Every structure is written in structure tokens, then in C-alpha cells.
């Protein structure tokens, strides 16, 4: 049941497309409805950060397996400006754009796993995972 989709993120409409793709896969894989919602919400936040800070990028959505667990991994990547201070960016309320500053720390709370790599002037990659319950 391996499945993978890449959604290019260029305009605000792609944010909707990406999160719907995520929900679709979660539903097909039999995720409980709450977890599909959490996943779709997380994708929405990551996609918007791409548009807002990096102008464009892509979101990969794939099923993963580890032992007898199955889950969904989402990789949001861009070649944008990167994040200079990741631990600062991960704090509730921190924003360089006058935003709410809840996106990154919030996504971390929504997911089972969260990983971020960022290089200034090179780009940002956020990898998240949600396991099926």
C-alpha cells in the first residue's frame, strides 16, 4: 500500500490542494478521522510557511511503515531564506512576519514526530510523521 504524492507549492490554492491530498491518503489508510484532521492542519501550516517565507517549494506526502506500524510522513521543503535560529522559531509566539508564531511549535504538537533542518540562504526542510492508531 505504498503511496506517494508530491504537491508543488506556489500559490495559496496549492495549500488547500496539499492538505486535501494529505487527508485523502489518511482516509484511504484508515486513519481515525481526528488524526486526518490533525495531519491536514499540519500540512496547511507548513505549506503556508513555504509560500510566506520561501515563495515556493513542495510538499511530499507518503505512507511509511516501521515494524508493524504504518503511518504518513510529510516532507515540506523549500530553497528559501532558511531559519537562522531554529530553537527560537520553535517557540510559541515567535514570528518574523508579525504572524501568530504558532505554526512550527503547533505542528510539532499535532504530530508524533517532527524534524526540521534549515540552512540560511539554502532553504528549509520540515519532516513530520503521524502513526496510524
Amino acid at each position, binding site marked *: 500500500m505504498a503511496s506517494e504524492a508530491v504537491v508543488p507549492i506556489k500559490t*495559496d*490554492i496549492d*495549500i*488547500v490542494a496539499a*492538505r*486535501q491530498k494529505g*487527508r485523502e491518503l489518511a482516509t484511504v489508510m484508515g486513519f481515525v*478521522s*481526528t488524526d486526518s*484532521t*490533525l495531519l*491536514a*492542519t499540519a500540512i*496547511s*501550516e507548513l505549506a*503556508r510557511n513555504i509560500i510566506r517565507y520561501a515563495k515556493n517549494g513542495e510538499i511530499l506526502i507518503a505512507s511509511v511503515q516501521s515494524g508493524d506500524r504504518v503511518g504518513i510522513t510529510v516532507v515540506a521543503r523549500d530553497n528559501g531564506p532558511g531559519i537562522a535560529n531554529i530553537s527560537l522559531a520553535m517557540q*510559541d509566539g515567535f514570528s518574523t512576519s508579525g*504572524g*501568530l508564531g*504558532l*505554526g512550527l*511549535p*503547533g*505542528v510539532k*504538537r*499535532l504530530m508524533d514526530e517532527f524534524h526540521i533542518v534549515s540552512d540560511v540562504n539554502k532553504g528549509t526542510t520540515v519532516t513530520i510523521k503521524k502513526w496510524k492508531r
Partner: protein
Amino acid sequence: MEVPILKQGLYLIASIQAALSDVDLLHLRDALAEKVGKFRARGVIVDVTVLDVMDSFASRTLRDLAHMTRLRGAETVIVGIQPEVAFAMVQLGLTLEGVDTALDLEEGLAFLDKKTKRHTSRG
């Protein structure tokens, strides 16, 4: 996706019909702020029942909408936030602080009737 805005008595009712892009949400916000003046509305209901995701942008835009209509003399109430959506919002840290909410359209109308102290008939 244009969101239809109905006038019902002193209220405006915006029933979101499908997923909205960020631009759609901004349009909705601005359209309501403008129509409140045009129709001399006292209350606004935004029905988000069909929204399966309410992220930080949507929350913020709805909050701004509520504040804008209030500055124009109309109370806004958001109705129809689903339990799972509420859960995701709270995990993100989005609480719509300072924005009124009600279970559904019916409760929203009752809320506005009370808040605007208009017990006269609508419609």
C-alpha cells in the same frame, strides 16, 4: 470560491460552502465589513460547518473579521466549528480569543438576538 452572503433581517449570514483558499478568506472578510455598512446590519454569522481545517491563517482572518465588523457596529459570531477542528485548533494554540462562537446557525441566531437585544422578529 465566493461565499454567498444572505441578509436575514438585521443579520448577515455567510455560509461557507467548500474549502476556502487564503485569498477567498480575505475576500469574505472584506465583503462582510463592507456589507455591514451597506445593509446596516447589526449582526454577522459566519457558518464554518463544512471547513475541515481551520489553521492559523483562517483563525486570524476570522478574528480580524469579527473585530472589523464590531468597529462598524455589528457583532459577529462564528458557528459550526466541528469537534475535531476545535481539537486541532487548540493543539495549535488557536483559541479565537475575543471572538464569539456558537454551536450552529440556530444557536448563532439566538446568540445575536440576545447580544443585540433585539427580540423582534427576523426575516
